[in-house]
């Protein structure tokens, strides 16, 4: 395959070595009226390779979610360029999206919600059903296939959302703080679950979180974003924590502790120095004393 790439075949085949998701100097603002205009991203650049697990970590309001919407093609950038699989991103089965608030259709059953993702695929009715079944089983909800979302707990709901995102077998999975509205114990189980699912699917993951621990636990690389207008300040490779990480206590490793401290210091600094933040100035005054 490398040989093919070297003889200059078209981009799709060479894509293996190319980054799969590229943001290049992206800018994005919201609001039309000149006064209410908010610049969310400025000169944001990021590259994600195939099969890589990258977390976007940063203070709230720094445009992490906007990045996912841009990569999914739900939004178009004002400046710069977003490239996915070598072209313009279009929403569809190739890109899976998991939202923080689950977003299950309340009048559909679990099965209906998962099958809904297969609507744009050309699969037959029976194939859709079989595939949905498989992924519902995979997230451990077979007994709840006929249940409606209001009968599910938060953790179960997010597992349905995860099944819905995975059922199309996407090459890139976009996750927007998927475990933020789940209780702490369920969250830990879900993180392990996600690692297990990810290791068997081999999908590229772009994962938005504001939890430092979660970012370190899950990622190959952490893209640290600065406050609004957001951009990537630093790319930090997570090293010394071999996978599978669910097989040992990652949090007690010195590598984890060191990285955690480093990241926290950076984030604290970012928030304290951000004039937009409630905490602005507190850091500098303390240092002056």
């Amino acid at each position, binding site marked *: 395959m490398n040989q093919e790439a070297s003889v200059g075949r078209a981009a799709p085949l060479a894509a293996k070595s190319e980054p799969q998701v590229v943001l290049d100097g992206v800018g994005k603002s919201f609001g039309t009226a000149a006064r209410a205009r908010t610049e969310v991203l400025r000169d944001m650049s990021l590259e994600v390779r195939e099969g890589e697990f990258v977390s976007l970590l940063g203070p709230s309001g720094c445009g992490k979610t906007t990045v996912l919407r841009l990569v*999914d093609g*739900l939004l178009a950038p004002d400046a710069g360029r977003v490239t996915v699989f070598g072209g313009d991103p*279009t*929403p*569809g*089965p190739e*890109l899976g*999206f998991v*939202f923080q*608030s689950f*977003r299950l*259709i*309340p*009048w*559909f059953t679990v099965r209906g919600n998962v099958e*809904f*993702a297969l*609507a*744009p695929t050309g699969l037959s009715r029976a194939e859709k059903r079989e595939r949905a079944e498989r992924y519902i089983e995979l997230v451990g909800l077979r007994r709840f296939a006929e249940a*409606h979302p*209001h*009968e599910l707990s938060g953790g179960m709901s997010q597992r349905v959302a995860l099944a*819905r995102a995975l059922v*199309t077998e996407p090459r890139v999975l976009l996750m927007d703080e998927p475990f933020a509205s789940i209780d702490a114990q369920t969250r830990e189980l879900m993180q392990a679950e996600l690692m297990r699912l990810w290791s068997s699917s081999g999908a590229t993951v772009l994962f938005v979180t504001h939890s430092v621990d979660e970012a370190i636990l899950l990622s190959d690389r952490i893209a640290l974003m600065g406050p609004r207008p957001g951009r990537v300040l630093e790319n930090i490779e997570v090293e010394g924590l071999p996978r599978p990480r669910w097989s040992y206590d990652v949090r007690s490793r010195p590598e984890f502790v060191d990285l955690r401290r480093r990241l926290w210091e950076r984030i604290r600094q970012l928030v304290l120095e951000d004039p937009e933040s409630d905490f602005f100035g507190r850091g500098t005054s303390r240092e002056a004393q």
Partner: protein
Amino acid sequence: MIVAFRVGFLILLIGLWQVLSQNVSRNLIPSPLETWAAFRRMLADNSLFEALGESLVVYLSGYSTACIVAIAIGLVMGTIRPVGKTLEVYAFALAATPRVAFIPLIIVFLGLGFEAKVFVVFLGAVMPILVNTYAGVLATDQNLNEMARSLGVSRPRIFASIVLPGAVPFIVVGLRIGATIGLINTVVAELYTAVGGLGGLLARYGNTFRMADYFVIVLSLAAIGVAVTETLRYLELRLNRWRGPN
């Protein structure tokens, strides 16, 4: 338990009715038994069923046309935003106008017959259904909408799976308000155009002080109202079965 309370309350009402009929002077209020006798008499000479049939045909023709037209226009207005924004001002204005004000105009154009009556009913029922359908589409859960778009689901599919089911509770509210106004307008139309149906009997018995007969008509109208709204409530329950029993 609730059923027992309801029956108890009904008995209380009838008792109150009996007391009133005995104490209000000059037989202005017929007793329940007199009313029952009048009901039997009107059943026997078939006059009640004839009038009921006539009114129901007017009512259901006008109401069902209103349902179809209002839901269709409401959905279009909600789905195609420029259409909605253009028309909503006029829709709200018309909804706020007392539509019986149009009756003289309708008589000029459509005469005093069946068409005029149906149109009066239609005009009464159409606006609440339209306005509620429109509001229902606008209230679409934008988070679900974005989720579906991110999956690459087609617009017609999003409409069928997310927008329409989300609008159903609003539409049903509109249908219920429309049903009530439509029934009112049925009687109004029968009083103001060619006198006939239950409205016609109401006028005749009221003007000639046949109060027992008059009461039968009033109760028949109430029964139609209950039947229609209960049907709609059943429909609503069926459509909302996914919510589970609570």
